[in-house]
């Protein structure tokens, strides 16, 4: 029995979360694994470093058509005699992994945050307010790995790349258009995030927030009221009902820290809170805090970040 890992590598470079998933699969297997991907990606040999010995790529598939990709994954699983199938817990993984699990009658761990202990996998529940151990009792296991849960392996060799030649049937989902977002770091993958809330008083004041984000190489985010008032686009809303993120650094400016907001960001490694209300609940969840007016504090942060950039 063996372990295989399915990843989406359609971007310009190999996504970090994909490299993490290959690393995770290789550690689970205790040795090299087979990786499966699709589309036109190049440079797939490099996944050897994370422990892939072979990468099977279905060149003809370009959209996330869950039925085609489920056939691809289960075909390879059958050929390789795999009993463990690893995914990334991202948009593509969320489209395909549950299908594969249902087809194979496999227990599915949605968002494993660490390697298992025996057949028990740890995952976040209650929007990060707690963790749960999920015991998988089926012979075949499907595990979706939460991004940023394991360091990327670097010690492996080079992988061979094979093209998948089977018939995946017609696509029932077609991509009509992809609208690129503006420049800047996409929020779900960002390691550094600068976020702001109603304390900014209006959308015209976001220049300072964007400037700090630019100096730090961070993505920008916002609280729910800000998105609901259309000061910022909805895809920037982080929180329980928006995007849940787990960056290395989260800087919250003028956000009080309601429990629903915290649920979306409490997995961040370091949290900084800037608020003019010393009683803001967010300070209880913070590592660093500044009580002060955003319009007074932000220029100082921008200046210090510029100084740091000049020095390095």
């Amino acid at each position, binding site marked *: 029995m063996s372990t295989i890992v399915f990843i989406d590598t359609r971007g310009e470079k190999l*996504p970090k979360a994909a490299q993490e998933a290959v690393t995770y699969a290789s550690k689970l297997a205790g040795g090299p694994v087979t990786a499966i991907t699709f589309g036109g990606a190049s440079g797939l040999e490099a996944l050897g470093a994370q422990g892939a010995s072979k990468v099977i790529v279905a060149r003809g598939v370009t959209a996330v058509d*869950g*039925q085609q990709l489920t056939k691809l994954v289960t075909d390879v699983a059958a050929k390789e005699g795999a009993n463990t199938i690893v995914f990334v817990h991202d*948009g593509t993984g969320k*489209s395909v992994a*549950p*299908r594969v*699990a*249902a087809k194979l*009658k496999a*227990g*599915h761990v*949605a*968002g494993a945050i660490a390697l298992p202990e025996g057949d028990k996998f740890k995952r976040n*529940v*209650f*929007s990060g*307010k*707690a*963790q*749960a*151990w*999920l*015991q*998988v*009792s*089926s012979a075949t296991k499907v595990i979706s790995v939460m991004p940023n849960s394991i360091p990327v392996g670097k010690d492996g060799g080079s992988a061979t790349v094979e093209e998948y030649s089977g018939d995946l049937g017609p696509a*029932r*989902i*077609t991509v*009509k*258009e*992809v*609208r690129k*977002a503006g420049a800047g770091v996409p929020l779900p*993958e960002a390691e550094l995030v600068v976020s702001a809330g109603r304390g900014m008083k209006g959308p015209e004041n976001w220049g300072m927030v964007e400037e700090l984000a630019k100096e730090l190489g961070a993505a920008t985010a916002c609280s729910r009221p800000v998105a609901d008032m259309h000061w910022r686009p*909805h*895809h920037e809303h982080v929180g*329980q*009902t*928006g995007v849940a993120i787990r960056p*290395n*650094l989260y800087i919250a400016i003028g956000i009080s820290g309601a429990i629903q907001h915290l*649920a979306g960001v409490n997995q961040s490694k*370091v949290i*900084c*809170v*800037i608020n003019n209300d010393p009683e803001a609940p967010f300070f209880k969840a*913070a*590592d*660093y805090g*500044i*009580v002060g007016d955003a319009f*007074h504090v932000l220029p*100082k942060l921008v*200046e*210090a*970040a510029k*100084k*740091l950039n000049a020095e390095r």
Partner: protein
Amino acid sequence: MKILVLLSQVPDTTARIAFTNGNTQFDANGVTFIVNPYDEWYALVRALELKEAAGAGSVTTITVGGADTDATIRKGLAIGADEAVRVDAQPTEALQVAEQVAAYAKDKGFDLIIAGKETIDHNGGQVGGMVAELLDLPYIALASKLDVAAGKATIERDVPGGVEVLEASLPLVLSAAKGMAEQRIPNMRGIMAARTKPLTVIPAATTDNVAATTSFELPPAKGAVKMIPADEAGKLIELLHNEAKVI
């Protein structure tokens, strides 16, 4: 347009999260339960909007749960669903719930089956995809916009670095994310009407037993926050670089 909406009961977003029975069960003591926000605000409301726009059709909700979920199910009826179905089983795990839903839906001819993108308690986001596989239907996860015309659905979803616009023929399964609709507050007429709308309880189907949550734990308490005077705010950048080492 015949639409099925998957509706889960979850603890209120402000509920205190605690566990009981040796950390094996959620402590429901004093907790208010609500319709899972993604199911209610996005999946159900968009289903109602599509039915209203078409001027015909029906919106059915389905919940896997005990009689304790009936009040939550009535909330869905008050918002405007035409009828509700409750599968009389305690939900244990995603595949079990999906098999219950698929067993009900398989011969009903739904054009659309819409789930919330995840529940706010177990955060799995699995059931929609599993139902799609069990019914051999296409599935689009994390849809933030949905329009239907001439038997085809146009869907938008956020992808890394942009927005993808997808097209698929009905029947189709979707999971709904923020952006798809705006929350609707039930009015008094809706609440009165909900009392007499059909809530059908059906027996559980046989399901597979592949996984179970065995215990819970709370995250370790956060250490004390380090405060920096506002006039020396620049120091924060220095600390993040030298002490926390995140920039």
